[in-house]
């Protein structure tokens, strides 16, 4: 039992940090540009596929640097030549633009790399068990993932709290218009923020690619969860996104490792309706409903705290 708790906590925190790598970029982009980037998860996917391709040519380590740079440049170009053009048509048009972009990116990835998963391997340098807890070998690559995401998290914190550009970004989180009035080159800041945000998502993609499955549907699978994180945390709130990421990471990881069901808990009662079509609910295990846990959480949050955990802004 203790083993389960420790391993699940580690995995949950890891998953949560990965989510936060993406959610942080998404939140900052939303706060500054006012547009929720629907294609954010697509840049995560692009990161994974670029990482796969570059690690095939030059190895994993160059890929870890180059793939995010490439994806970030692509993100900046999308902002400069796409979003900025759509901006005058309002937020709905911007959201729809990123929605169409997500659709197109998925199709393009399918054309180039196919629909089946690609063989993106853990680099040999990190392909060993880091330590053995009780009886489980914990792979070194997962520790590496955790370290990378924590380093980026700290780096992000330092940049936001200690540098001039961070100050501007922070100001833009709460008073986006004022920042513009103060004479900053808002267009360039937007492009930069969009590029950095998408690059962060791509970093998550490169380090998650070998550990999870690198496939053309990975953006579609992760995207909705990412939006749940942002809404649960409170739109535009970075600390909220952090808490929500960890929360959802932990909830989902723990749920996967649990095998309980209503039938297991109240089996001896075996009420009559357990035999009807309700038997699905009666017999479903917690592990089976793990994929819908984030969405259940979303509905609960919306009922009890519509602004999100730490949200203050109403869109």
């Amino acid at each position, binding site marked *: 039992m203790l083993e389960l708790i420790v391993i699940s906590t580690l995995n949950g925190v890891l998953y949560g940090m990965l989510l936060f790598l993406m959610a942080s970029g998404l939140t900052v982009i939303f706060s500054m540009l006012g547009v929720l980037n629907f294609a954010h998860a697509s840049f995560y996917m692009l990161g994974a596929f670029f990482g796969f391709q570059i690690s095939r040519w030059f190895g994993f380590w160059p890929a870890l640097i180059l793939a995010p740079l490439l994806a970030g440049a692509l993100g900046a170009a999308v902002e400069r030549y796409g979003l900025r053009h759509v901006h005058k048509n309002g937020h709905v048009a911007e959201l729809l633009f990123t929605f169409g972009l997500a*659709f197109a990116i998925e199709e393009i990835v399918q054309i180039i790399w196919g629909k089946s998963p690609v063989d993106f391997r853990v680099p040999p340098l990190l392909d060993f068990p880091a330590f053995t807890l009780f009886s489980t070998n914990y792979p070194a690559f997962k520790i590496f993932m955790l370290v990378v995401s924590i380093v980026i998290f700290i780096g992000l914190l330092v940049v936001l709290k200690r540098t001039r550009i961070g100050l501007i970004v922070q100001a833009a989180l709460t008073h986006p218009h004022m920042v513009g009035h103060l004479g900053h080159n808002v267009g360039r800041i937007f492009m930069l923020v969009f590029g950095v945000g998408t690059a962060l998502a791509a970093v998550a993609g490169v380090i998650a690619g070998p550990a999870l499955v690198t496939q053309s549907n990975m953006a579609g699978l992760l995207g909705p969860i990412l939006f749940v994180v942002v809404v649960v945390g409170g739109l535009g709130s970075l600390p909220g996104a952090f808490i929500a990421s960890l929360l959802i990471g932990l909830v989902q990881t723990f749920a996967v490792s649990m095998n309980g069901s209503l039938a297991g808990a109240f089996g001896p009662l075996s009420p009559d309706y357990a035999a009807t079509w309700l038997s699905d609910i009666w017999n479903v295990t917690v592990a089976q409903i793990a994929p819908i846990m984030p969405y259940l959480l979303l509905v609960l949050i919306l009922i009890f705290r519509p602004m999100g955990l730490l949200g203050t802004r109403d869109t």
Partner: protein
Amino acid sequence: MSDATAKIPATIAPPRPAASDRLKFYGIWIGAALALLVLPKLFSSGGSLTTFSLIGISIIFSLSYNILLGQTGMLSFGHAVYYGLGGFLAIHAINIIAKNKFAIPLPLVPLVGGAAGLVFAMLLGWVSTRRSGTAFAMISLGVAELVASSALILRTFFGGEAGVSANRTKVLRLFDWSFGPQIQIYYLVAAWTLIAVIAMYALTRTPLGRMCNAVRDNPERVQFVGYDPHIIRYIAFCFSGLFAGIAGALAAINFEIANSAYLGAVQSGTVLFATYIGGVGFFIGPIVGAIFVTLLSLGLSDLTQVWQLYFGLIFIAVVMFAPGGITGLLMMHRPLLKGGTLSRVLPSYLVAFVPTLAMITGLMLAIETTVHFTVNPGEDSHIKAFGIPFDAANPAIWAVAAVLLIGGFLIARKTWARVAGSWDDALTAAREKGVAA
């Protein structure tokens, strides 16, 4: 309040439309009904009847979506939930009716789907419509994922991956219509389409429809007037769910099966594409969009392997360059047509058309050649795209594609700037003639 209204002279109320206007108004609907009746006589092949049925279903679904997006300003990424649940309930209803021999004919089954859509919209809508704007969009996405994932867990009701099927011919027959042949299904869909379109048009003319527009444009002011935007969004959401359920039930009757794809993100995305490409600003927009997108998805999938990519690119192009959709583009020309200055714009259109076409051809050539080398690398390089054969291995093709794409883009940019200039001139001239733009 009643005192105040009593004192206002009656002239403020809009005058009753003249007889000719009324004739024109009802004439449109009667004309549409006649067209629906005659259509299968003109195109009687099985394939075209299926296409018409799909278009009809898509029209109801898109219009129901536009109650949210166009009229109330709510962007939903999960509208297929109500469509799909309507479909599932309709399939179960057909099975139950057939099993117990209830005296309910098939044409009434869409009501079951509509009721299902309404009930679930009432249940899920209260939470979803609390927020508007981006938050609503994300919430609708989350709720859609919740329902779609739950559908795979509740296997008994939703039938797992395979779905639930039914036999539509086993229910009570009226006038000896078995609803086996596609022509009878066509008439069923056509009748329901007409009913639903009229109902949804009528809805836009009610005070509720007007308040929906007000909530879309200025929710704060609506609150000052004394309405609760949340309630108005909620009611609009419920109506939207009702009609989506009807569309889903018709789809289920048409295919005799309902599966989890009905509820999924692809279905939600398709209706969003259809509505937006058609144009959200006008009532007729989603109808145009539904026809266009259904024909496009059927036609393109025959012509090219990667039709979904083209689909996405068309959508992006519409969002970027024609936010009003197809109908928005057409309606833009109305003041010019009325002012008689349309002819001033047409030449510049023709000039801009050539490089734009070259650019699009170059893009398509590049896509198709790339697809050949990545998707089917081992095959013969003499491929056919859009019915035109060419050799993908020939380097000249790459050169041609690059020249068309880049050259077309550079020239097109210049010519469209000219179009904008002549457009402004024409509009100014039209305004001088006293046409309100």
